């Protein structure tokens, strides 16, 4: 940092009887301490301040508005030159203190000035943490701490270049928003999966990320910076995964640490910061420490409220009030980015003895979380609507018991203590012109009129006739209440079965909203669709994961923790916790090489049972979990891949020998089966999908009880679907007849895709077909050729991302944690 010319503001000469107070640092905390001291004991001290920054005391919290251009430096000055003159304070600007001599009781600055003290206040603040990656010292790499940083950023921003901000916490986001406002192209890198993870849970973090991205700022989470690249000045940031982001400016905003070096050199007790007692004195009773450099009871502080409380205590002590003591109180913080409202206060870390009350309102972009312990509010996080922040902050500070108002607590002070309103009463009270559906601009009067005049009975009717709640669906609850108010007991809202207890939405609604609202991750979806639980349950998570996989091929990152164990480890769990392994045998065909490899694996790994399955393959049962990757590696070597015998996806294509061998065979059923399996394998479907191809109507492959079956005839191929031979037994329906193998494959792929797009999770083909109608399916896949081709095209695209053998990936080391214990204590115990 370049120093500006030394400026000295000096007023009246020190008089002999006054005590000499020297202050190292000129930030907000010592500024407040002096204000309080001059109030309590005017004229008691002759004060000298050393300020490393070449300027007067200013409001550091307001640096972000200066960066964004919303404020000028003059507007954030706390103490102008006049204040120093008025209080007889000697201020050395741009003077860093380099030594404290506790024996002689003097301090010495870098410029060689030595000043004696009776009392000393250390307020050296904090230093930004700089990640020591290669290139961190290049020109153009800045931290975000003081006005010099802001001025350097403003200068860099004039070039309208590209900025990379490392750190997606409070400071990093404020810096990013400010630089964006200055016209720079900004990317925020954040190491953790979600932004501000210390203040927000993942769902709210995603909401914030969207708001940040909506301002045109790119956000990359889980971004581990490997190096900053450049010859003389910064040119790019390199991430661990090899991504290279061009950058003219890099801001490191990853955190701060107390600046306690000077105190440590002087022999004071230093932990993380300068250790102080309740009277704010350090281990030397004549020396105080205040602000971000101070450590009290193992804690350091970075927010202004506790620092001001420290300042008040020091002022009291210096004025002779020995009873002045520091008790740290809860803190509150706000993100100062215009248009994004975020407030957090108190302690919101998770612990066993705490409870959460969460309110989400996705349309209005509102998220409120209140953390309770022993019926008291101990922490609060508000996103979107922060107006109640002060009220909750007050509850935290007072430690009020909230038992009496718990039910309405989250709604804030306007409901405090009162009874909750009957929601239908609130809807009934709305005027006719009140807008119910924002997407389609439908007001209350239009809906009630439609209900009464057209005799509408349920939500679907109202949607069809008025378009209310037919787009994003978030007003569905409101519309339902309106129907209830209008029809009274005549309304029977049993129409939609919710997916599970975590939501009121049915499967179809969720699928529709995934597309309508462009939802691409489970946390995003749960936030936007107002999930009632923090992270779903074992029913909804696998379903959501499937819907996202099926809707966004190539874009959605599969969440393995939301998959059932069989799909997570690509084997079938058995009753004793061992697994079974089934390699693919295309169309039921195998060879000596494959059989030999299977035999070798069975012997090598001591696999207790080997069995033929109903789908014409071989099952190895009783494999220990830790052996799975090695078993797969051996099977891979013989050319075999996972048979997906565990998957809600393509299982088997069973065939007969067809024209290859059979005297009755009409077509190459084995060949078609192999082609189908090679085309369809890897695809995820709502439930398992089993196919068969029979070479003649004698149907040796039992194709007429499969999800999809083909019966070869002389003139071509009869395609069947919607059979069942499990819980239910049902013969297939005929979908249609095609002349060529290519057509058969196209129709079957289109049918599979339609099922993928419409089927509810765990709904087999026959149940889906019954629900939507056999004729509807036939019409879309057989009759409407355009539609068939479009479905086929989507299936082909999706397969590009699906046909990766999961066994080969895991044999090569993917998800290794799944197959090894975390720790083995058997040895340790034995040693005792």
């Amino acid at each position: 940092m370049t120093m500006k010319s030394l400026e000295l503001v000096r007023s009246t000469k020190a008089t002999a009887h006054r005590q000499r107070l020297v202050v190292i640092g000129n930030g907000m905390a010592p500024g407040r301490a002096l204000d309080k001291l001059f109030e309590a004991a005017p004229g008691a001290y002759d004060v000298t301040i050393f300020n490393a920054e070449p300027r007067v005391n200013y409001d550091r919290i307001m640096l972000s508005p200066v960066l964004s251009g919303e404020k000028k430096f003059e507007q954030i000055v706390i103490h102008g030159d006049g204040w120093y003159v008025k209080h007889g304070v000697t201020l050395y600007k741009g003077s860093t203190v380099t030594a404290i001599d506790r024996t002689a009781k003097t301090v010495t600055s870098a410029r060689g000035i030595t000043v004696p003290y009776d009392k000393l206040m250390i307020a050296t603040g904090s230093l930004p943490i700089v990640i020591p990656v290669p290139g961190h010292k290049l020109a153009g790499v800045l931290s975000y701490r003081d006005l010099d940083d802001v001025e350097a950023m403003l200068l860099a921003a004039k070039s309208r270049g590209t900025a990379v901000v490392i750190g997606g916490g409070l400071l990093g986001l404020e810096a990013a928003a400010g630089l964006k406002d200055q016209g720079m192209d900004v990317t925020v890198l954040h190491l953790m999966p979600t932004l501000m993870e210390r203040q927000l849970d993942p769902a709210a973090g995603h909401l914030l990320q969207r708001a940040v991205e909506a301002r045109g700022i790119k956000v990359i989470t889980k971004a581990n910076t490997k190096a900053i690249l450049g010859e003389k000045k910064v040119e790019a940031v390199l991430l661990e995964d090899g991504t290279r982001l061009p950058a003219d400016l890099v801001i490191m905003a990853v955190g701060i640490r107390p600046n306690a070096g000077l105190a440590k050199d002087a022999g004071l007790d230093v932990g993380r910061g300068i250790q102080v007692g309740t009277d704010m004195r350090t281990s030397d009773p004549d020396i105080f420490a205040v602000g971000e450099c101070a450590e009290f009871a193992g804690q350091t502080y970075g927010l202004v409220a506790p620092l001001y409380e420290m300042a008040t205590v020091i002022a009291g002590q210096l004025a002779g009030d020995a009873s002045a003591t520091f008790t740290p109180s809860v803190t509150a913080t706000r993100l100062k980015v215009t248009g994004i409202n975020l407030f957090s206060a108190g302690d919101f870390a998770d612990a066993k003895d705490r409870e959460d009350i969460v309110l989400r309102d996705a349309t209005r972009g509102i998220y409120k979380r209140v953390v309770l312990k022993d019926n008291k509010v101990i922490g609060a996080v508000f996103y979107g609507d922060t107006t109640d922040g002060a009220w909750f902050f007050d509850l935290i500070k007072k430690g009020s018991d909230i038992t009496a108002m718990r039910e309405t607590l989250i709604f804030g002070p306007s409901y405090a203590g009162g009874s909750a309103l009957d929601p239908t009463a609130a809807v009934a009270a709305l005027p006719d012109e009140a807008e119910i559906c924002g997407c389609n601009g439908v007001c209350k009067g239009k809906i009630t009129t439609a209900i009464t005049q057209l005799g509408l009975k349920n939500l679907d009717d109202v949607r069809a006739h008025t378009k209310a709640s037919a787009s994003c669906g978030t007003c569905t609850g409101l519309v339902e209440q309106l129907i209830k108010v209008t029809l009274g007991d005549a309304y029977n809202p049993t129409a939609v079965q919710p997916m599970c207890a975590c939501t009121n939405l049915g499967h179809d609604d969720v699928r529709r909203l995934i597309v309508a609202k462009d939802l691409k991750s489970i946390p995003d979806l749960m936030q936007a669709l107002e999930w009632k639980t923090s992270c779903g349950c074992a029913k909804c998570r696998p379903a959501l994961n499937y819907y996202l996989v099926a809707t966004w091929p190539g874009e959605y990152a599969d969440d393995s923790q939301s998959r059932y164990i069989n799909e997570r480890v690509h084997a079938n769990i058995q009753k004793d916790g061992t697994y079974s392994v089934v390699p693919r045998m295309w169309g039921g065909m195998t060879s000596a090489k494959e059989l030999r490899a299977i035999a070798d694996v069975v012997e090598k790994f001591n696999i207790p049972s080997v069995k033929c399955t109903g789908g014409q393959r071989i099952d190895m049962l009783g494999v220990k979990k830790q052996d799975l990757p090695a078993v797969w590696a051996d099977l891979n070597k013989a050319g075999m891949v996972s048979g997906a015998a565990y998957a809600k996806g393509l299982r088997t294509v069973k065939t007969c020998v067809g024209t290859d061998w059979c005297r009755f065979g009409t077509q190459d059923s084995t060949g078609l089966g192999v082609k189908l399996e090679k085309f369809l394998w890897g695809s995820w479907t709502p439930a398992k999908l089993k196919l068969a191809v029979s070479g003649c109507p004698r149907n040796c492959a039992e194709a007429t009880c499969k999800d999809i079956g083909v019966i070869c005839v002389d003139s071509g191929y009869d395609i069947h679907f919607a059979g069942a031979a499990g819980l239910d037994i049902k013969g297939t329906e005929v979908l249609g007849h095609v002349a060529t193998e290519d057509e058969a494959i196209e129709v079957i792929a289109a049918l599979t895709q339609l099922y993928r797009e419409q089927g509810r999770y765990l709904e087999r083909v026959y149940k889906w077909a019954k629900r939507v109608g056999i004729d509807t399916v036939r019409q879309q896949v057989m009759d409407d050729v355009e539609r068939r081709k479009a479905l086929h095209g989507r299936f082909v695209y999706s397969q590009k991302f699906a046909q990766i053998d999961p066994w080969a990936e895991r044999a090569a080391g993917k998800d290794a944690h799944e197959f090894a214990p975390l720790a083995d204590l058997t040895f340790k115990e034995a040693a005792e």
Partner: protein
Amino acid sequence: MTAKAKWVDIGALDSIPVRGARVVKTRAGCIAVFRTAENEAFAIDDRCPHKQGPLSQGIVHGRAVTCPLHNWVISLETGAATGADKGQTKTYALKIEGGRLLLDAAEVAAGKVAA
């Protein structure tokens, strides 16, 4: 009978996937160590009270796990079956210090005697 706690480092919290679990082998059987979405950790016997299903293989949601065998939902905090099901899995004291997981070996040893 509660012996004095004896904390043993069993690994880093980060080596367990979020909303996932891994096992610690002991002479009395496996203990499942869970990590929730909120980065809490819990240790319970890797045996469902219903049919001894390996709970470590289940889907973790909130502070509960759904057993992979028959979908019983077991509370990670108490080890008790939730909903209509009745049953109890043993829990173990576990703490997180500096990102490391510490398990009370004294309790594990006591469990061994009982088992």
